[in-house]
């Protein structure tokens, strides 16, 4: 199914969305580590980012060089419209399934 995204992809997409204008490699990684409390390598992150970019769910551009990072530019990421659609799709699917659940999903006893 086109537009299907995995759990980690979803995580990355939502993190990019949450970071807004400041979404680049290190900030994404740190945020994911902070929120999900799990350690991820830069390699795993960039594989996912590349995949998302190939699917057209995010797009990237290079920032201006700064004095930091040895003058190297940052690559910033942004969710595309397609990306937003995918996120909606996943969310809708989940919501629908939540609603259909016959078991009581409430945590309250």
């Amino acid at each position, binding site marked *: 199914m086109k537009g299907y995204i995995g759990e980690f992809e979803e995580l990355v997409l939502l993190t990019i969305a949450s970071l807004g204008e400041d979404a680049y*490699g290190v900030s994404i990684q740190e945020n994911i580590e902070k929120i999900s409390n799990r350690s991820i*390598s830069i*390699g795993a992150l*960039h*594989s996912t980012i590349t995949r998302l970019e190939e699917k057209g769910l995010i797009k990237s551009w290079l920032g201006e060089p700064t004095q930091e*990072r*040895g003058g*190297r530019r940052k690559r910033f990421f942004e969710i595309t419209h397609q990306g937003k659609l995918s996120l909606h799709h996943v969310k809708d699917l989940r919501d629908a399934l939540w609603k259909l659940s016959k078991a009581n999903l409430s945590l309250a006893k």
Partner: protein
Amino acid sequence: MKEQNIKPPRFVDQLFDWYCGNAPIEDLRGDMEELFYTNLGKMSVARAKLKYLQQALSLFFYAIKKRKQKSAYHQYSQQSINLSMLKNYLIIAFRNLIGHKAYTLINVLGLAIGMASCIMLALYIQSELSYDKDFADAESIHKLILERKYPDKTQILAGVPHSFASVLAKDYQVVERATTICGPFDDMIISYKGSDQSNLNYLENDVYAADSNFFKIFSFKILKGDRSTMLQHPKSMVLTESTAKRHFGDEDAFGKLITMSGNVFTVTGICEDPPTNTHFKFGLVISIHTIERFNLDNFNRPDSYCYLKLRAGANSIALESMFPKMVDSYAAADFERVNKTSWLDYKKAGNGYTYFLRPLRSIYLDPDDIGGMKPSGNIILVRIHIGIAILIFAIACINFINLATARSHERAKEVGVRKVLGSFKRQLVFQFLNESFIVSFIGVGLATILIIVSLPYFNLLTDKNLQLVFNLQTALVLAVIIIVLSLLAGLYPSFVLSSFKPVNVLKGNFTATPRGKWIRSGLVVFQFWISISLVICTLIMQQQTTFLSQKDLGYDREELLVIEGNFHMRPSFTRSLVNEINRLPQVLSSAGSLSMPSMNGIYPQQYQSEDSPEIRSTHTMYIGDEFAETMGFKLLDGKQFSVATNDSLSVILNESAVKTFGLSNPIGKKITFLEQTYGSGERTTFTIIGVIKDFHYRTLHEAVNPLVIQSNEIIFSRMSYIVAKVKPGAYKEAISNIESKWKELAPDMPLRLRMVDGVLEAHYQKEKRTSRIFTLFSSLSIFVALIGLFGLSAYTASLRTKEIGIRKVFGAGIVDVFFLLTSGFTRTVLISFLLAAPISWYLMETWWLRGFAFRIQISIWTILGVGIAALAIALVTVTYQSVKAGITNPIRSLRNE
């Protein structure tokens, strides 16, 4: 970022850059560095570094993936090669080539000559290695070889007793077929009816006799006749295409009747001429069953060649291991019947027959000369030629490398500008490789033309028929050569050129590094080392071959004619011929003989002298009266055979024989001859009547061994050779007179008359050819090296233009400038010479001269002479540039400061 001076580990960066290749990683490196400095605040430096490495490694697959994507998807990706840049490189390359015509000419010419030499040598080597490889199932065909053991020596023989072929095919499952071929029979007279029904007689050489399996084993093309049966019946004959054409022209030779040795043969087949790259050489093959003795058993006397074809997958070594048993069971009875001695006793005395197999494909280059039909090749020589080809290739490459690095200062600004404009090192390397590719391409193209032009001459020199065939394979080989050449020659310069620091170069304080100079001098030393060694070797070879052709043989070979022919069974004819020739006014003397020095008819026989009981195998000649005088053998003691006496029981010994037999006062002593050839064991006692000075009765590859000379009167005064000593300058008349006398006496026989000088020359053809090939390639190698030196000197001079200008302003003259510029090259050539002299001396001593029993001593003056000549030529080469620099007006070289 608390500590700026702590940096991520450099090796990780390098590793990362390496596997990322052209992938866009600027952002990643930034991310990694940022993380590293963040980590520095959280953990120890070592851990942070480890983490950095982990991060870098975790990006491995990501980077590999990104590397492949060069396309439009990532527009920011850096491509090292694209079409417009390639176009620019080509333009710049051509501008450079055209702008520096002398440089281009030197480069291209050096490469072209070097490559042409290499390719011609390669063709030669390929042809030497291609022998016998084209037969169908060549790998399963083997030749049976005999190692004959005597108490005092062993001998490898190409020929074996003929009966083993049938035994092998019958007794051993793994042998598919076996064939016997016997020959060559030379000087065979063949006759047939011409178109006008008259009888035509011709002399035919290279006649062989074979059984019907011969053409079944060897896949010679059969043009007419049935391959499997054409040699089956006695008196059938197969002609080669060219033999058939020679005798019958366009007429069909098939089915013709040809008379030879009293038999009437029918032509039952016509086959192709044996290709030159086989060890076979025959013009006419008759059925072996025609010859009566081949229908009888023979397991002891080597008389023919035997080839086996083994079944697929058969193990030749396993088969060989069964041969000793085969010899015992077949040869013993035959041996005892003929020799009337016990086979076991004979073996115990240290005699023996060991048979083994040699693969067909290795016969030509076998050091034991087991082909038997043609002079064999020499595997060592083939290897040396391969070596020379590689060295010339290296010399040509070095020219390119040296010139490119030497003139690097000219390209330095370009490199600087390109770098400032964003060129990567990889791109620059590619650019310079591209240039070396263009030069190689032109060079190899020119080399191909050179080869086409010079191949006919090279073929004359090597006595081969080499051709450069243009097909896909050749094109591929040439393409590979071009690529390898451009990489070998271009790689180092392109790395040197592309590694210039733009800041230094553009500031203008760029100087050639001392390291580059060292490498260049080293390479020049290498070039001259190789070329000087080759030249020394060549000179020594030439001296040796000249020595051989001028060596005193112990007899007078000038103005000596020899008639050879199949007339030994007609003593009355030969006697009257000798008398007739003797009567000619141009002839000083003439005599006949069964043996001829350096030709044939000299065999080992067993003798026992009266002074010692030991039986010795000694070479024996059979000569006629006055033969010794005509040849100019020098008598030391006693007398020669003469017409007046019956000499059938007299012998003459040479000095060596007197020594070996231990005779202190030889004249009048007795010596006993033990007949062995026919196995009768008969003993004949001879009286020694004379002693002659040692003369060379074999080629100069062999030392002079003991020799017993018997008179041909013991075998009915038969003669196989007639020699005639001619008055100086009367060759022509003598020859025409002998011809007419011959026509009178033997109208049905063709005459074979040669000059002894020419016969002797022919023995050293191989050495002469090797020496000529060496001469050619050593001159070419030194020429290529000189071309390089010329170019290099030009650039050294141009580098020092200003220096020379200043020196001249301060009063230096042409001579000073000359020494300034030549001292470096002089040193280089001297070092090369010091390296070359011992190497070439050692090579010639251990490899080449060892093969001669009579050889020159290497003269120190030869070697020194080459050194001085090399230095002189090198100086002349650089002089042009030095003098030019010396006479230039300093104003010209200093004005543009």
